């Protein structure tokens, strides 16, 4: 298993600003992912955070809007840039600890409200 800490847990932001969310894992993990959960909806994968290289983005998500860093095997950041009210969501960091298919472990999420 893995214990995942996300910061901030919640924030209220102004339109046009950017916010960086941090994800810290208590052990080295092979794969880290960032998901978005819009109000009342399911989870949508934003990107896979790759250690030492550029993140792999899903259709509809771009690096300029959601830059991601992963400097090592236990830490990643997601920045939500130039925010608008449509970016109000819960952003979830998740990890997979093995190299084969296995369950994802999730942080408690970062709830962003954009005014």
């Amino acid at each position, binding site marked *: 298993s893995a214990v995942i800490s996300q910061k901030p847990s919640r924030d209220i932001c102004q339109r046009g600003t950017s916010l960086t969310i941090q994800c810290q894992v208590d052990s080295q993990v092979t794969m880290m992912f960032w998901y978005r959960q819009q109000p009342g909806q399911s*989870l949508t994968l934003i990107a896979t955070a790759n250690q030492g290289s550029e993140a*792999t983005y899903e259709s509809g998500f771009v690096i300029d809007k959601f830059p991601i860093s992963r400097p090592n095997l236990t830490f990643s950041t997601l920045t939500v840039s130039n925010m608008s009210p449509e970016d109000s969501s819960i952003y979830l960091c998740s990890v997979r600890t093995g190299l084969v*298919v296995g*369950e994802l472990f999730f*942080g408690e999420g970062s709830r962003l409200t954009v005014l």
Partner: protein
Amino acid sequence: AQSVTQPDIHITVSEGASLELRCNYSYGATPYLFWYVQSPGQGLQLLLKYFSGDTLVQGIKGFEAEFKRSQSSFNLRKPSVHWSDAAEYFCAVGALSDMRFGAGTRLTVKP
């Protein structure tokens, strides 16, 4: 491409009653299937998973799920619901690089 359908957006059951949450999937190969629960304001917690073998899998909190390949289903069940089970439940199908989630079923438990 893999996808997951949860036909029921919201279900209400009485405490002590049985529960079944439906999940149908579309996947090109052997599916890896999961059920997660999300309590209000919390992240997701894994209830159970199916990779292979016995098609009836047991999970935490008294939940079980049955994989039926012929019906492309992986329904979640619990014989007696507790008030603390009120939450959002997500079915998911996994792949090596990512996991796809259903839209979720919100469970309300009546006293």
